[in-house]
């Protein structure tokens, strides 16, 4: 009698577990659905970076933030690149990932930026590019593809960064 009682309890628990798993799967699916509806309905949460305008040029796409110290060192160098390599076809775009716009503006007041700044407070653009260091620069060639990724910024590697840019500028688009 004890055996039959325990097996019926076990069967009851097994049914409950099956139901629970189903409910869990449904909840996950629903949340994904809701999330995707939300992000497409409210474009302010989905920033867009359209680089098609720069096709045929070399783009230095840099991700920076006010709280990132090496970024402070990279700005003078990016200014130099924009000035000297700009006429040769280099476009410098710096994407800011600060949550607080005020902090980014403060950084810009202290660090002169003579290139395009794009704001990406929710990290939507950053997520598309996926990187693991701050700052990270993507060097996009005239063909519109990413050729080089610079993880972090090191002043003693500026010549390396420069030769990567030169190499891409010298390539011609087919």
């Amino acid at each position: 009698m004890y055996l039959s009682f325990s097996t019926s309890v076990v069967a009851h628990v097994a049914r409950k577990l099956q139901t629970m798993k189903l409910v869990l799967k449904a909840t996950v699916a629903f949340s994904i659905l809701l999330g995707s509806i939300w992000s497409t309905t409210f474009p302010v949460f989905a920033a867009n970076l359209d680089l098609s305008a720069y096709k045929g040029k070399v783009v230095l796409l840099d991700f920076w933030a006010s709280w990132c110290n090496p970024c402070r060192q990279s700005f003078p160098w990016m200014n130099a690149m924009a000035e000297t390599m700009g006429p040769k076809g280099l476009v410098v775009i710096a994407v800011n990932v600060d949550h607080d716009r005020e902090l980014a503006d403060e950084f810009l007041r202290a660090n002169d930026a003579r290139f395009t700044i794009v704001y990406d407070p929710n990290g939507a653009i950053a997520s598309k590019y996926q990187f693991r260091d701050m700052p990270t620069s993507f060097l996009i060639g005239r063909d519109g593809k990413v050729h080089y990724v610079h993880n972090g910024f090191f002043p003693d590697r500026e010549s390396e960064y420069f030769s990567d840019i030169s190499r891409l500028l010298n390539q011609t688009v087919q």
Partner: protein
Amino acid sequence: MANQAPQLLAKSISRAGIVFALALACGACSTIGPDPWQKDLMARREMQPNPYPLEVAAAEHIYFSKEASSGGRGFAGGGCGCN
């Protein structure tokens, strides 16, 4: 039906276990933790593992002089992950 119940339970537990193990394994490979562009708060001094080492050392010295246990703390990691 009553005879199959224990096997059903075993199956569901093992399935749940596999899912759980996979989730854990997947979680272990790079989905735990914020993205590099979300480390603004981790860059702050107060969020470093040991922002005031001399003050902590002085306090630990007091405790060490009065208590039998000591140490145990580590100071690695954290930070904004820049460079």
